[in-house]
């Protein structure tokens, strides 16, 4: 009953302190939007130009031009099975094509030789001396050229084998983990931003705890029959609700901007809930060492930056493992729960891995949350709940 009263009171105060709430709730969607804009403007696009000089051949009074077929194959394949953003344009002559590659309007130029059809037809009749010729032109120092050329070459060989009724010598099978084949850069960054939206809880939660000290209402609560557990529990539940709303708002923003995820939404909410609790627990430490909302806003910045920029939340981060436990790497970033939360979200939302695979992350988050709560609780009790 008292916990419910604390929840209702805390909710009213939270809603009426709308600036802090708005700041906390809007940060996730705002970051999503910023990253979306960054990804959109820096999205890789590979453009291949094709010059078809093929004169074609006449077989049984039928005019055949394999150059045209190849160009069409490149275009159609691009629209069908290749995941990378690949555009094929036909240009009339080589000089125009080179000019456009030089001006960075395209990444590679494919020039189909005039005898291409003739050579293909000869190959069909097992004339191994005939060699269909295609010339690739581009800036060899440009990664975009290399990717374009590799893909164009692959497709070109596919067409040649098909046109000459030959079979592939080697069949390569590529297995993509989860949705990594289709996941965009934007998709990859979203799990981190979902956690950023929870990191912002650090302010609302710390202020919710510390406002009782700042208003001195803690004295009234100490005189009442409220227990420390009911007090901390009530505030934590409200902050958990704020956290879930925040992460759902962020997810909704991401989805509306084209985020694709696999896995279960329920697991995502479960991970978000656990992470929220851990942030709330950490907020208790901040509240314990501060006495006012202003102090929270100053002191809280330091852990917020650590949590945002050294856990992989704001951008991917790699670090050396100190050691491993059952194959799970432990490093300095592992002292911060967002590190594990992001790893868990990556596994479930992006790589579509089994729930079992995130058990180490769940254990780490729970352990650290308990650790934060114990440390925060001890300091908070000593500094603010002690009989003075």
């Amino acid at each position, binding site marked *: *009953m*008292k916990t419910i*009263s604390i929840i*209702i*009171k805390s909710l*009213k*105060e939270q809603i*009426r*302190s709308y600036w802090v709430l708005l700041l906390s709730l809007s940060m996730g969607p705002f970051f999503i939007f910023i990253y979306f804009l960054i990804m959109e403007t820096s999205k890789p696009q590979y453009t291949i130009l094709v010059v078809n000089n093929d004169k074609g051949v006449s077989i049984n009074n039928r005019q055949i031009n394999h150059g045209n077929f190849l160009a069409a194959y490149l275009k159609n394949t691009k629209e069908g099975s290749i995941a990378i953003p690949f555009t094929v344009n036909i240009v009339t002559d080589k000089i125009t094509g080179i000019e456009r590659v030089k001006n960075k309007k395209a990444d590679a130029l494919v020039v189909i030789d005039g005898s291409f059809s003739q050579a293909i037809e000869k190959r069909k009749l097992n004339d191994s001396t005939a060699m269909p010729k295609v010339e690739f032109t581009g800036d060899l120092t440009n990664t975009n050229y290399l990717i374009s050329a590799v893909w164009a070459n692959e497709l070109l060989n596919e067409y040649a084998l098909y046109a000459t009724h030959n079979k592939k010598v080697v069949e390569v099978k590529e297995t993509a983990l989860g949705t990594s084949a289709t996941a965009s850069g934007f998709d990859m960054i979203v799990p981190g931003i979902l956690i950023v939206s929870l990191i912002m809880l650090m302010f609302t939660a710390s202020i919710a705890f510390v406002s009782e000290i700042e*208003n*001195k*209402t803690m*004295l*009234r*609560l*100490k*005189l*009442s*029959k*409220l227990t420390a557990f009911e007090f901390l529990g009530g505030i934590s539940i409200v902050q958990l609700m704020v956290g879930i709303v925040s992460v759902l708002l962020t997810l909704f923003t991401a989805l509306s901007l084209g985020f694709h995820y696999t896995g279960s939404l329920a697991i995502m909410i479960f991970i978000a809930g656990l992470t929220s609790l851990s942030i709330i627990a950490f907020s208790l430490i901040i509240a314990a060492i501060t006495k006012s909302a202003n102090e929270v806003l100053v002191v809280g910045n330091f852990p917020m930056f650590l949590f945002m920029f050294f856990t992989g939340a704001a951008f991917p981060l790699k670090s050396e493992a100190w050691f491993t436990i059952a194959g799970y790497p432990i490093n300095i970033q592992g002292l911060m729960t967002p590190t594990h939360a992001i790893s868990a979200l990556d596994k479930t939302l992006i790589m579509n891995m089994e729930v079992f695979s995130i058990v180490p992350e769940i254990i780490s988050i729970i352990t650290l949350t308990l650790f934060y709560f114990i440390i925060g609780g001890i300091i908070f009790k000593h500094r603010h709940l002690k*009989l*003075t």
Partner: protein
Amino acid sequence: MKQTQMETMIKIEGLKKRFGDFTAVDGLCFEIFRNEIFGLLGPNGAGKTTTISIICGLLPPSEGKISFNDSHGKDHKSLIGYCPQENIFYPKLTCMEQLLFMGQMYGLPSKSVKTNAIDLLNLLGLEDKTNVRAANLSGGMKRRLNICLALIHNPEILILDEPEAGLDPQSRILVRDFIKTFGKEKTIILTTHNMDEADRLADRVAIIDHGKLLLSDTPQNLKRTVGEGDVLELILENSDENAQNQFAENIALRSMNIRINSESVLIKHPNIIEQLPAIKNLAETNGLTISEIKLRENTLEDVFIHLTGKSLRQ
């Protein structure tokens, strides 16, 4: 005060509180009766707030004990309502919201808390402010809300720390009337360094200084301790120390009590009116010019000065 039918509500025995080497409360012993208004009078730093904090359970005593007569079967927390000197409330909650919240914090059912809250808001003239956020109340209203919050759980003992401090005249009258009314049914402990406040409101007063109890009795009895008669207060235009000392010697020779303060001279005698012409003559003889003469009854301040040799305001 109905001393004959008094039933002890709080019994304080050998109460001591030490903070390191400093002893804030030094062996206090007194009783507070049911349905009386008990004033705890003393200068700043006398140990009033420490004593109150121990009674409220906010501080553990170093020595001694406090026992409560909880004939209503209430636990310690339900028994006491504390209204601190500083206004303490939730600025973003309305008057009704915070009264309901605090009532629920004492484990009371919502219905009875709401009834209590409405009664209290009416009693303290805040009925129009039921749905106004506390932050938007005037200073006097905040003080009254502070009292409402202390009473929402219907305690048997109400502790008021400097209840009239910083109040506007209208709020002061409201609070004073409330204390008098409430004191007929409940036990009230007032802590104050305002002698008039204690004199006007308290049935009994305990005067403490340096953590020690100096005297405890009704205001009338306490005032009798400094002798019968009224006090004449002379405000002097000049403050020549030699002249004042000479004047004091002459007054003392006429069997009158005299005390010289920086701004005034206090003279006490059972028939002070009859002595007034002689006093004026003596002042003129000693070269002192009287700018103002005040005649008043003994106050608790006189008692305090009599006991400690210094003013409460010092």
